[in-house]
C-alpha cells in the first residue's frame, strides 16, 4: 500500500475508533483524535521527506479501480503540487485537534467532524482523479457548515453560517457543472488527470468549450478560495467559526480550489487558460488591494485576519494569471506557507477569544505583557503575514513577484504595494492594538498557554520558519511539477502575447529564463 493511502486512511480509522468508544470513556475521544492526527502528521513527514525532489512525474502512486464503467478510480499519488500541501494538511490538522480542548458540548461529534475534514482534505490533495478530488473536498466542506452552525460564536453566527453555506455550495455547484462538462464532452470517459491529459493531447477540445469549462472551474473553485468579488463569505465565516474549523478551512480547504485549478484546469485546458488569464489578472488586484484595504478597516481581529488571508490569495491568483514557472512555483509556496500561517493566526485568535470572550481590538491590548507566549507568537504570526523574511510567506510572495514581473510588471508594483505597505499597515495596527499597549481589562488575570498546550503553536511556527529559512527544500520539490503545468498550460500559445505585455515597462524585454 502506498504511504499516501495510509495517510488518507489514518483520520478515518481515528473516526472509527472514536465512534466505537462509548461515552463512559469520553476522555478517550480527544486522545484518539490526537493519536490519529499525530500519526497522520508523522506519515505526512514521511511522505514529504521520502519524496524525491527534482524528479518529474508522480510518486507513491496507487490506483484502485472503482467503477470502470464510469471510469472512476481511486488513484492517489504525490508530485510537487501536493507534497507540500499534504504535509501542511496533516500538521495543521494535528494542531487543530490539539487546540480543540475548548470544545465542551458534543465533543464526540466535534472530533468526528474534525477528523472528517482532515481526512477529506488529505484525500482531495492526494487524488489524481478529479472526481475524487471533488468528492473528498465536499466531504471536508460539509463538516465546516455543521461546525460553524453548532459550535460557532457571536451574534452573527446564523448569518455567517448561511452566507458561507450559500457561497460555498453555489461555488461547488458551478465547479461541479464544469467537471461534469469536462467529463461528458471530452469523450475520455474519465476524470483521471493522467488518462484525461493523454486523451486531450490527442483529441483537444475546441477553444470555445475549453473557455467555457475553464470559466466554470475558475469561478466555481475561485469562489471556494475567495476570489474577488466572491469573497465576502470568508472573513465573517472565520469570524464566527470555532477555532479548529477556522484553522482547517482558512488554512487548508481554501487551498483545494487553487489546487484543482493547478491540477486539472491549467494542464488540461490550455486554450481556456489563455482566454481567462486577462480576467484573472484584473480580479486578483481586487484581492490584493481591495481586500487589503477592507482589512485596514476592521475592528475585529478575526475579520482582519480573514480579509488578510484573502489578500494573500491574491498573490496566488496573480501567479496563476502569469502562468510562468517561477510564478507557479511561488504560488504553491504561498499556498503551503499560508496554510501554516492562517492556521497559526486563527489558533491564536481562538485562544484570545476563549480567554476574553471578545476579539474587538479596542478591548484587547497588552497581550504581550499578560500572555508572553501567545503575544510573542501573535506578533510573529502577524509579522509573517506582512511578508517578513524568515517566514515562508516571504519566500513565496517574493518568488511570485519575481516570476510575474516579466509578464505583468504593473501588477507586481501593485502587489508589492499591497503586500508590503497595506499589509504592513493593518498587521502592525493589529499588533499595536492587541499585543502592545497597556493590558486591557478583558485580559487582566487571564493565563497564558503553558506546557504541552503550546505544542500546536510551536509546530506551526516551526513549520513557517523552516520553510522560510530553507524554502529550497520545498521549491526543489515543486519545480518539476510547475514546469510541467506551465508547459501544458501554455501549449500552443503564441508567445507574442506575453512579450507584448512585458514591453509596456521593459523595452529591452530580456526576461531571464
Amino acid at each position, binding site marked *: 500500500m502506498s504511504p499516501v493511502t495510509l495517510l488518507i486512511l489514518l483520520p478515518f480509522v481515528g473516526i472509527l475508533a472514536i465512534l466505537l468508544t462509548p461515552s463512559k470513556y469520553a476522555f478517550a475521544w480527544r486522545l484518539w483524535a490526537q493519536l490519529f492526527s499525530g500519526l497522520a502528521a508523522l506519515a505526512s513527514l514521511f511522505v514529504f521527506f521520502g519524496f524525491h525532489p527534482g524528479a518529474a512525474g508522480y510518486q507513491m502512486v496507487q490506483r484502485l479501480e472503482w467503477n470502470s464503467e464510469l471510469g472512476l478510480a481511486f488513484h492517489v499519488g504525490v508530485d510537487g503540487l501536493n507534497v507540500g500541501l499534504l504535509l501542511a494538511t496533516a500538521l495543521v490538522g494535528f494542531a487543530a485537534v490539539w487546540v480543540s480542548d475548548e470544545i465542551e458540548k458534543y465533543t464526540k461529534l466535534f472530533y468526528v467532524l474534525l477528523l472528517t475534514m482532515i481526512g477529506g482534505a488529505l484525500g482531495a490533495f492526494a487524488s489524481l482523479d478529479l472526481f475524487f478530488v471533488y468528492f473528498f473536498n465536499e466531504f471536508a466542506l460539509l463538516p465546516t457548515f455543521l461546525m460553524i452552525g453548532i459550535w460557532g460564536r457571536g451574534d452573527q453566527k446564523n*448569518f455567517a453560517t*448561511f*452566507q458561507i453555506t*450559500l457561497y460555498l455550495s453555489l461555488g461547488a455547484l458551478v465547479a461541479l457543472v464544469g467537471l461534469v462538462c469536462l467529463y461528458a464532452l471530452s469523450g475520455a470517459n474519465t476524470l483521471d488527470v493522467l488518462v484525461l491529459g493523454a486523451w486531450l493531447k490527442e483529441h483537444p477540445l475546441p477553444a470555445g468549450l475549453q473557455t467555457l469549462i475553464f470559466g466554470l472551474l475558475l469561478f466555481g473553485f475561485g469562489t471556494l478560495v475567495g476570489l474577488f468579488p466572491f*469573497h*465576502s463569505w470568508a472573513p*465573517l465565516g472565520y469570524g464566527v467559526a470555532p477555532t479548529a474549523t477556522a484553522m482547517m478551512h482558512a488554512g487548508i480547504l481554501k487551498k483545494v480550489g487553487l489546487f484543482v485549478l493547478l491540477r486539472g484546469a491549467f494542464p488540461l485546458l490550455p486554450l481556456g487558460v489563455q482566454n481567462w488569464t486577462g480576467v484573472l489578472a484584473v480580479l486578483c488586484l481586487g484581492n490584493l488591494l481591495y481586500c487589503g*484595504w*477592507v482589512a*485596514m*478597516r*476592521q475592528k475585529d481581529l478575526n475579520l482582519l485576519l480573514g480579509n488578510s488571508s484573502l489578500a494573500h490569495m491574491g498573490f496566488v491568483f496573480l501567479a496563476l494569471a502569469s502562468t*510562468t*514557472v*517561477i510564478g507557479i*512555483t511561488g504560488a504553491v509556496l504561498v499556498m503551503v506557507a499560508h496554510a501554516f500561517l492562517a492556521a497559526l493566526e486563527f489558533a491564536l485568535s481562538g485562544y484570545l477569544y476563549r480567554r476574553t470572550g471578545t476579539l474587538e481590538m479596542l478591548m484587547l491590548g*497588552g497581550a*504581550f*505583557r499578560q500572555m508572553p507566549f501567545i503575544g510573542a507568537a501573535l506578533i510573529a504570526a502577524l*509579522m509573517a503575514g506582512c*511578508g*517578513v*523574511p*524568515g517566514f515562508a510567506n*516571504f*519566500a513565496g510572495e*517574493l*518568488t511570485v513577484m*519575481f516570476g510575474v*514581473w*516579466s509578464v505583468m510588471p504593473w501588477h*507586481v*508594483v501593485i502587489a*508589492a504595494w499591497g503586500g*508590503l*505597505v497595506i499589509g*504592513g*499597515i493593518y498587521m*502592525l*495596527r493589529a*499588533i*499595536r492594538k492587541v*499585543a*502592545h*499597549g*497597556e*493590558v486591557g481589562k478583558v485580559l487582566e488575570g487571564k493565563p497564558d498557554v503553558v506546557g504541552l498546550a503550546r505544542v500546536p503553536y510551536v509546530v506551526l511556527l516551526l513549520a513557517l520558519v523552516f520553510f522560510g529559512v*530553507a*524554502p*529550497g527544500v520545498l*521549491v526543489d520539490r*515543486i*519545480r518539476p511539477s510547475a514546469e510541467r503545468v506551465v508547459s501544458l498550460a501554455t501549449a500552443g500559445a503564441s508567445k507574442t502575447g506575453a512579450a507584448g505585455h512585458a514591453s509596456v*515597462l*521593459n*523595452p*529591452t524585454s*530580456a526576461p*531571464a*529564463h
Partner: protein
Amino acid sequence: MDPISHTAVASSNAQDLAWVVLLFPLISAASIPLGVGRSRALTHAMAIGAVATGFVLSVSLFLLFGFTKGGIHATPLPWLSVGGLKLQIGLTVDTLSTLMLMVVTGISTLVHVFSTRYMDGDRDYPRYFASLGLFTFSMLGIVLSDNLVQTFIFWELVGVTSYLLVGFWHEKPSAADAAKKAFLTNRIGDFGFILGIILVWSAAGTVQFTDLAAKFHTDPRLLGGLTSLAGVLIFLGAMGKSAQVPLHVWLPDAMEGPTPVSALIHAATMVAAGVYMLCRVFFLLDLPAAWPGFLATLGGPSALGIIAWVGGITSLLAGLIAIQQNDIKRILAYSTLSQLGYMVMAVGCAGPDAAMFHLTTHACFKALLFLGAGSVIAGCHHEQDIWQMGGLWKRMPTTSICFAIGTAALCGLPIVTSGFYSKDAIFASALAADRPVLFAVGVLVAGLTTLYMARLYLVAFLGEPRSESAGHAHESGTPMTLPLVILALPSVTLGWLPIGSFLKEMSFGGGHPHYPDSITDILFDPFNHSPLGAVLGLGLIVFGGFVAVSLYWNATVDPLPKTLGWVSTALRSRLFFDAIFDRVVVPIHDAIAALFGLIDRWLLQGLVVRGGSGAVDLVGRGLRLVQTGNIQTYGFLFVIGVAVLVILALK
C-alpha cells in the same frame, strides 16, 4: 550539487569565519528564550561574548582579506532556485564589508556592555539582549551580503528587529506607536527597493553583486531606458533605512526606544545600512542617465543627481530643525539625520569612499554621543529636556569630557577630531562632482551643526543646575563610562587613517589614491588636499560656535523663539512633515479603506447576500402556508397527488 559536502570541504577556508561572525549573535539570541534567559549574568555574558568574538574575528578578517582587491567570498548556501531565479545566501569578505563589520560589531559590543547597567532592573532584561542579538545578526547579514535579494532579506529583518527594539517598552503607547511608524515608513522605502531589485534582475538575470558589476561594466546600457529608474527605486530603499526626506519622520520618534538602542540603531548601524547599501551597488547608480518614454525627452537627472539632492536637502532641513529641539535625544536624532544627509549626498556626488569614511567616523562619535546622552538620562533620573539640566560637568565629569569630545568630532573641529577629516572628504567630493550648490549646503550645515551641538552642550552641561534631578545627577558606574571612554579614542584618532583613499583604491576602483606620508601631511591633509572646503568649514564652525556661545552662555530659557517668531514655531513643529503624514497620507489610505469597507458591508454582504436571501425568504414564507404541520393534510395532498399521477399515467 550537494551543498553540505561543499561546505565541509570549504570550511577550512579562513573567509568562512565570516559565517561565525554572522551566526554567533543569532545563536546567542536564540538561546536566551530557550533557557539562558533565566539567569541575568548568563544572558549578558552570552550576548557580549557573541558580539565581542565577532569583533575580534572581524578585525582578523579585515587584516586577512581587507587588503585584497575585489575581496573573497565565503561558501554560499543555496536558498531558492527555480527557472532563471537563483538565490543564495553568500558572504562577501572584502574591504568594504570588513570595515563595516568592525564598525557594527565594535559598537554593538560597547552598546551591549553599556546596556548591562542601563537596562539593569528592567523586567524584560533577557528579551532586551535577545532582541539586540537578533538585530546585530540582521545588520551583519546586510553587511556581508553578496547579492541584492539577501540584502533585501536582512534589510527587512533589520526593520523587524529595530521594530522590536524601538517598541521595547511596548506598554508605553508612544513607544509602540513610534515602533509602528518606523516600520511602516521603512516599508514604503522597501517597496521601491524590491521593485528596483526585480527590475535589475529581469534585465541582468542575476542578483549577485559581482556578476552584476561585471555585466554592467561590459554593457552600461543593459537596463535601457530604465537605468535611472532602477537606481532611484533602489535608492528609495536607502531613503527609508537612512531616513532621508521625506521618509525621515520615523527616526526622531524612534527615540522612544531605550537609549543604548538609539546608539546602536540610529547612530552606527541601521541608518548607516542605507548608505552602505548605496556604496555596495554604486556601480548601478553610477550609470549614465536614461529614463523611459516621455521622461527621456525631458532630460531627467541621473540617479546620482537625485540622490545627491535628496541628501543635501535632508542634511539642511534636519540641521535647521535640530536648532529648536529641546529633548536631548531628539537633537541627536536630527543631527544624525543631518549627517546621514551628508553621507547620501557624498554618494550622490560620486564619492562613496567619502560617504563610507564619514559613516565610520560618525558611527563612533554618534554612538559616543548617544551613549553619553544615555548616561546623562540615567544620571538625571530619566530627564530628557536639556532645559531641565545644566551644570552636569561638575557631577558627571567623565561623561562630560567624553560628550565634549563627541561634540567636537561631530562639529568637525580641525586636526583633533575625526569628523573634520571625513566631513572634508565629503566637501571635496561635492566640489569634484561640480555641484557647488550642494557644496555650499554642506558647508552651511557644518555651521548649523556647531550651533545646535554647542547649544546642547552649553545648556545641558555648563551653567547651573536648573532642576532637582540635574542637581542630584551622578555617574552610573564603569559599565556605562567605560564604553564612552573607549569610543572617545577613535572619535579623535580615526580621521588620521586614510580610510577614504584606501576604500577608493580597494572597492571603488579609484585611479590615483592619495596617501599622506608624513605626520604633518596626515594632520593637515585636508588643507593640502581640498583647501576650500577645509577653510570654509572651519570658518563656519567658528561662526556657529560664536553664535551659540553668545545666545546660550548661562541662558535659562531659549531666546530664539522670541526673536525668530514663526520660523521657530515651524522648526519646533519639525517643519510639519509629521503633520503632513498624519493629515494627508494616512487619511487617504483610511478613506479608501472606509469606502471599500462600506462596499463590502453593504453592497456585497448587504445587497447581494442579504438581498438574495431576502428573495428566497419571501418565496419561503409563501410556501410555508402550505406547511401546516398536520400529518393528515400532508396525507391528503399525497393521496390527491397519487390519484392525479395515476390518472395521468393511465391515460
